[in-house]
């Protein structure tokens, strides 16, 4: 979290001024970057704790499901894109995911001419069910504690702290001059590495055009002098990025930040696809920004976006659908657009997007017609090289674990497979060896 980032920034700031080996490593990485095309990972946080049970409905456990949720359960006629998993069990998606994810049964009702990403399990969309933080106590069902475990990739990270798993992986990669990663949703512990931190950018590259005017022309150039950035035309993003990254010791980032405007110009993406251009959602804006940075050749390898809130304690039926609609539409459009445009922008990297969420929710509905903090949930992985369909074992609704959905796929296992896919050492990152889930 930001607190630790700031403390570490100090250490790194000092280190950056004196530790030539680290800078040399970065430069070496840059030199190597041209010959390397590591995958790009986009982590999308469904903040607040998504209700997996109403996201991917276990139709084969319909009786127990409806008994636990007499009011907010979905009926077989409501769910869409029903499909059978490998064991023959039937599932269906929340109806709000229908149009946007093109999850129709035939798999050929595209949105905006884009192909279905699910396609009955044959597309590049994987669903990992039963995932979450093993065990159950009042801490693991606390938002900040659960998130910290997900960010670090270790259980009980809320006690011990730690760097983010993605940050640790990426700083060993051959990333570009801007650094390894960026967040469109604030300071991200997920991107915090031992020597590096993610750039923090707004949800829109408009931030890069924010002029640093003063009441007099001389003040603008003075602002440049303040922060060591180029005088004249200095913009706030450049300054702030430079300032933050200076504290991280990466001198190259100053030049990188100055190049941000160029990247934005390289990839304006005026034909980017939105669900409703008149009402662009926050996640769409974030993914649009990420698309510009990817196609603009930023060299960043990891991204963090977050939206919500999925904390549906009451009247869940009223709001959950629109969140899922946003997720499915934004993810589909992002991936499909990137896939279509990559070659023309000269980007050879595979691109993978995955979702995480604090925790799942209680299998039973509450008196407010919502659900409370639970345990096991659902993760989506969409991207190049992903084996679509359902992975993992859906938790039993008749054999609950302390009244909660039991975790069948520990969160570290999901992270482990992703880490391996993006070239990291999974044992080093999550602290143990896990069998492949098979989604990639």
């Amino acid at each position, binding site marked *: 979290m*930001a607190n630790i980032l700031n403390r570490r*920034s100090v250490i790194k700031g000092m280190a950056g001024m004196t530790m030539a080996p680290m800078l040399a490593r970065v430069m070496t990485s840059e030199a190597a970057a041209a010959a390397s095309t590591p995958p790009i990972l986009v982590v999308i946080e469904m*903040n607040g704790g998504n209700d997996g049970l109403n996201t991917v409905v276990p139709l084969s456990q319909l009786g127990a499901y409806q008994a636990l949720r007499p009011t907010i359960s979905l009926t077989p006629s409501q769910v869409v894109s029903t499909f059978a998993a490998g064991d023959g069990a039937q599932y269906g998606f929340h109806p709000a995911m229908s149009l946007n994810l093109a999850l129709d049964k035939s798999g050929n009702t595209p949105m905006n001419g884009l192909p279905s990403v699910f396609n009955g399990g044959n597309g590049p969309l994987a669903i990992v069910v039963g995932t979450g933080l093993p065990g159950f106590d009042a801490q693991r069902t606390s938002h900040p504690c659960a998130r910290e475990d997900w960010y670090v990739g270790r259980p009980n990270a809320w006690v011990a702290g730690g760097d983010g798993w993605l940050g640790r992986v990426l700083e060993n990669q051959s990333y570009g001059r801007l650094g390894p990663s960026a967040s469109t949703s604030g*300071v991200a512990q997920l991107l915090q590495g031992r020597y590096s931190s993610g750039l*923090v950018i707004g949800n829109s590259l408009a931030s890069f055009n924010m002029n640093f005017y*003063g009441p007099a022309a001389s003040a603008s150039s*003075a602002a440049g002098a303040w922060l060591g950035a180029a005088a004249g035309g200095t913009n706030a993003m450049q300054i702030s990025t430079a300032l933050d990254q200076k504290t991280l010791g990466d001198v190259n980032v100053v030049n990188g930040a100055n190049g941000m405007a160029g990247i934005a110009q390289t990839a304006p993406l005026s034909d980017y696809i939105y669900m409703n251009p008149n009402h662009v959602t926050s996640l769409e804006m974030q993914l649009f920004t990420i698309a510009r940075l990817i196609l603009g050749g930023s060299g960043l390898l990891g991204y963090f976006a977050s939206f919500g809130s999925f904390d549906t304690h009451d009247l869940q039926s009223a709001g959950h659908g629109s969140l899922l609609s946003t997720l499915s539409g934004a993810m589909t459009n992002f991936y499909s657009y990137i896939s279509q445009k990559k070659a023309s922008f000269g980007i050879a990297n595979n691109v993978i997007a995955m979702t995480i969420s604090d925790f799942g929710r209680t299998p039973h509905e509450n008196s407010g017609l919502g659900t409370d903090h639970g345990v096991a949930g659902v993760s989506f992985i969409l991207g190049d090289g992903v084996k679509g369909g359902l992975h993992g074992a859906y938790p039993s609704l008749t054999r609950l674990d302390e009244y909660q959905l039991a975790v069948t796929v520990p969160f570290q296992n999901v992270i482990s497979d992703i880490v391996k896919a993006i070239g990291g050492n999974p044992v080093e990152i999550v602290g143990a060896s896990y069998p492949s889930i098979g989604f990639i």
Partner: protein
Amino acid sequence: MRKRPSVFGYRHVLAAAALAAGLAAAAPAAAASGPTDRQMIDHVLRRFGFSAPPEVADALLSSNPHWLNAANAWLAQQTGGLTDVQSSLIPLEPPPAALTAAEAAASTKGYPCNTVYISWCTADRDYEDGYLEHTLGTSRQLQAKLELHWLEHFSVVGSSSIGTEMYAYDKVVRDNALGNFQTLLTAVARQPAELYALSNNNNIGSNPSTPPNVNFAREVMQIFTFGPVKLNMDGSEVTDANGMPVLSYSEADIYALAYALTGYVVQDPPNDVDPLTYAVTTYVPAHHYQGVPAQFHGHPLNQFLGQPLTIPPGADPIAFVARLLVRNPSTAPFQAKEMLQRFAIENPPAAYVRDIANVWTNTVDAPDQIAQVIRAIVNHPLFPSTYQSMTKQPIEKLFGYLRQLPGELAPFNGSPYNTQAAAQLLRYNLTAMGQDPLYPATVFSFYPIGDVEATSTENNYTYWLGTANSYAGSTSSNNIGAWIDMPTLRARMATKYGASPTALQIAQYLLGAMIDVAPADVANANAGNPAHSGSDPINLTLAQLSKDSPPTDADIQSAIWLIAASPQYNVN
């Protein structure tokens, strides 16, 4: 809660940043012997208010040369029934305590409104404007600062659906901000805005087959009172034999508490245009859980934290539960640590937490408990070590120079009525900097200052620490010149220096008011003393003010902007 070293504060971050950028490190830092009396009283006014003109510190120190005496005089004034007067220098509309039907019907807000008052163009935003106006201009600065603290503590996130309810909610927060915590907690927990925000409204437990909504029950423990982990009095965590923190409560405790807190219903009286009575909370015993408690995790639900939990007949469950919660052994260190993190230092030493927690415990029944805790924080021997140890929140940055110099927000479009549009400018600039007070960017109990997490990404993609917003916020500097009341500022400087102050005197005034620079340091720099070199704020300010002789208003406004944009101005 987290096992991390806490060696460095934000001042060091900024200093490191400045060093890395090739700048002079920290021109206005306190001398090695510690901050001066002047610096300390400015410190108190910044931390426990939203800063003040230099003349306020002058007056306090003229009567009480030692900073602590001056600080206690100010605290006595602030806690002694001070009338809530809006500053004449910031001529804004006071927040409406109640609105008449005629006012409600009139579209005088400068932006499109529905004709029905209750459907004002988002009542929450309208209310937020009023909140900002009041906070900026009120004479009750200590109360306003505590009000902000509790607003973030209780974490009601404003929305258009509860905009009108925010009036009454904030009123109880403000009225009890310096009072007794149990009273404050009880009042807040009964507020319609809180009941909506944490979904305890209509949480009916009369049907044993449907569990209650546990949202409020969890958060009233986790973030309102004692936190998720048991604490020792010095704020350290109680650990088990394996070194793991001992949890404060179990899931069964959450459910037990949720059942106990069922039965509250918010009712909206029809045709009520007074926002303070627009919605009322009613306890409906028939909606309280009446049956034999079910088992949860094998624990009976009439047990709470290992003790029987039986609401006496006729008792108000919230009041009964609040009494239990505030007396939990972890509540005092939890609250003490949080207040120290807000008002004193990011990582308070154990002794500081322990001493303040003891004051908290000893005053648990006092009607002015919170005020006594504030006095204890200021009078503690460790308080001087907190000087310039943190970074400012955006609201402290923005309101700081407006109060120091002073600011003057012009009525929108010249309308004599619509001063609230000026407050909209405040809100827009503040949100651009990443802070939206009634949409808290932080739930302070989760994420202390600097440990920032959004509660609503729809409104807070970017946060006020980190990168863009920290400095993008300085685009608000566009407005600094326009917002400074130059005639008043010049009159104040004339009182101090005569009718035609020199560039040096103006620099001394501005740098002293905004970033605590001693006059002698400015004079040294002006004389070419090498102690100040490079592009530090002193030399830049002097250079800007020396462009014309005498300095023009534009020169002064530019100098103000330079100081406000400096890393040193971020330091609190």
